[in-house]
């Protein structure tokens, strides 16, 4: 099935109850599939008038205890940033899928990873973070979305599925999870009943002391997330002299590049973050000590590479391999670049 379709399966099996969408290439198939499947299992699909309203419908539905999800791409994610800031402050769990296209502006519909900063760093106003999961296959599009709702509810946080046009548009076999999750009652949510009558969902704290306290509470939560959620995958890093660091479609390409370079006796491996927030800094620091060079392959201007340079106390060079505008490098191209750089 399509990566985009797999999101919808993962969502429903993960207990999603509400999908609020707005079409945009290359994420539209998620809305298409949601419009078919959500009603079939008694759940709600609604097309909003814009991404601004879509994210606010999420805000309302999540406040009312639902497991709500939306999906979009760069231009739509920009419009959602206001709502996401409110969602972070009110601590509402939800899932947002960003099938990245190339920007800035209207850009084009080909893959890019230029939303990294806007999604991983928070993106809207204020001191907040989203959990960011980054799938690299149709299987993970399903699995990560499935997991995302549990994470969102556990931490009362927005969970992003940050992927790209190729992973969304690609078809691959997917094994669906058999354990169907259900949305449970939340003591803080608004159920319009006697028990929840005094519950309040709010993001306004006129008293600076109270707002400071809320901020501290959020920061504590992010720290806990960093300790508990970090996930990554390594391929042939045991004896690696060089490592690729990449996520999404780039990780797929680097996987092939590792295979090819290994055949040519280059000791190279792949480090693939599955979570971008929390960022797997600790493990990267370890690897940073054992390898000679780190090759960061991204479809943007080096946004993750900046994080690596920050989080890995780097004496070793962090090489940036960047493509923008919707250009996706071939395996051959990357292999060629690496060969040049390891000779230096």
């Amino acid at each position: 099935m399509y990566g985009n379709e797999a999101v919808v399966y993962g969502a429903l099996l993960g207990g999603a109850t509400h999908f609020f969408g707005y079409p945009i290439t290359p994420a539209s198939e998620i809305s298409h599939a949601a419009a078919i499947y959500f009603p079939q299992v008694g759940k709600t699909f609604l097309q909003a008038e814009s991404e601004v309203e879509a994210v606010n419908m999420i805000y309302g539905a999540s406040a009312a205890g639902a497991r709500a999800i939306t999906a979009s791409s760069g231009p739509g994610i920009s419009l959602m940033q206001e709502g996401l800031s409110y969602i972070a402050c009110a601590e509402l769990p939800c899932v947002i899928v960003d099938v990245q296209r190339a920007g800035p502006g209207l850009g084009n519909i080909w893959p890019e990873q230029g939303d990294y900063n806007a999604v991983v760093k928070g993106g809207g106003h204020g001191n907040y973070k989203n959990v960011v999961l980054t799938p690299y296959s149709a299987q993970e599009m399903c699995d990560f979305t499935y997991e995302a709702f549990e994470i969102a509810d556990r931490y009362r946080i927005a969970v992003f599925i940050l992927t790209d046009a190729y992973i969304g548009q690609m078809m691959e076999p997917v094994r669906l999870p058999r354990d169907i999750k259900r949305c449970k009652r939340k003591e803080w949510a608004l159920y319009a009943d006697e028990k929840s009558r005094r519950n309040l969902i709010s993001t306004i704290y006129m008293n600076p002391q109270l707002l400071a306290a809320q901020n501290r509470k959020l920061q504590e939560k992010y720290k806990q997330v960093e300790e508990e959620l970090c996930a990554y995958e390594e391929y042939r890093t045991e004896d690696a002299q060089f490592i690729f660091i990449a996520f999404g479609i780039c990780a797929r390409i680097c996987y092939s590049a590792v295979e090819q370079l290994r055949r040519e006796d280059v000791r190279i491996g792949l480090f693939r973050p599955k979570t971008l927030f929390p960022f797997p800094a600790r493990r990267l620091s370890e690897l940073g000590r054992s390898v000679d060079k780190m090759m960061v392959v991204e479809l943007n201007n080096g946004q993750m590479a900046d994080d690596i340079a920050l989080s890995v106390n780097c004496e070793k060079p962090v090489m940036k391999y960047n493509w923008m505008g919707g250009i996706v490098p071939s395996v051959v191209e990357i292999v060629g670049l690496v060969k040049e750089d390891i000779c230096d």
Partner: protein
Amino acid sequence: MIEAKVKHVKPAVFYEEFFRKGTGQRNTHYCPGCGHGTAHKLVAEAVTDLGVQDRVVFCSSVGCSVFAYYYFDCCNIQCAHGRAPAVATGIRRVLRDAIIISYQGDGDLAAIGTGAIVHAANRGENITVFFVNNAIYGMTGGQMAPTTLVGQSTKTTPMKRSVESEGYPIGMAELLSSLKAPVFIERVSLGDIKRIFKARRVIRKAIENQVAGRGFSFVEILSPCPVNWKMGADNARRWLLENMEPVFPVQNFRDRADDSRPGRGNKVKEVSDEEYYDLFHIEEESSSCVMQTKHTVGTQSVKIAGFGGQGVLSAGVILAKAALYKGLNSTWLPSYGPEMRGGTANVGVIISSSKIGAPVVDRPDMLIAMNGPSLDAFEESVVKGGLIFVNKSLIKRKVAREDVRTVYVPATDIAKELGLVAAANVVILSIYALCSNVIDIDTLRKIIPEAIKKRNLISINLKAVEAGVSYYDKTRCEV
């Protein structure tokens, strides 16, 4: 002389003490002479009288009424500027029995939130919206609102609002009245006691409508803002009567029981695990239809390209599914977006006996070129020693390269005879199956009924497989 005794009663929906407010827990935060206090009380009375306090979710918007949750003892949610109708929509779709009140000011509803209110009204969401129009921004300190009167002076129209520069004040009740879905729209005024009593009836009606499940109700409340209008409370009420009411006529715009009942959404139902399994075809692992014996093909990259409508993408699906059936891995990555809808289309399929990394086909081992432009575009990219299928019905030239193998098939002509031009791809796939070790012809026969979504096209595509077989037998096309 008539003696009247006024008895002030606090509606039960108001807290006894405004504990959330911090200091001054007996008074509201509103300025002297402000209409919000009155409007709050009318809403609170209606909720109390209708006995729905436990069912209310109160959506407060950005503006002076953002702190409504200080006073209303019910579920409260504070919404981003202008978005309350969208938030209310989200809540409505979750809580079928809730009484959802969106309480918004003019900066919120009529400026930044114009889109949200229009579409919530147009969907006929079963919610009640109270729109407090005081012709100015209150909380931010007296700037121009979309409802500011022509000639009115504000912080951002110090030279008075002019039609030339800022246009006319917007009539939200009139605007929403152009929509079909709303069941109740009325404008009321808090200009004097008589009008307040009228407003009380209207506000109650707007909530009653929701309790009865009738649909979208909207009440615009003309309300004084003495502080920002820079006048005393008495003068403010007079100014409201004399200046605002002529611009914003106090009247009913819509009052009907709605039969179509839009905005209710689909029915909520409980669905068992088994129903999920059935719908998503989730099967036990053992019953998986994938062949258990894997065979080794290395990695094969295939590019199929042609006009949109030639069945290029579905041929890719058939190939990818056939590979999965053989216990191989496969990926399918199409060209997508506007070019798919007319123009050219192409798809890259990778088949491999090991894990597939990059799904992008840059250097295909095999190319199926369905038309001239496709051959022109991709001929060079085929690997040395690779294979090119040429649809010779449409491509008149020969492959220029000499370091690749080529097969020429009049695929479109064969498919035309069968009566489905789009089956030309399947003719070629069938020949590919016969002359490669990646997929075989029986797998193709088996996969086509699964892979083709339009049921009525399955038999003709199966015929195309057989047509490919007989063409292969006849010509023994050298590969």
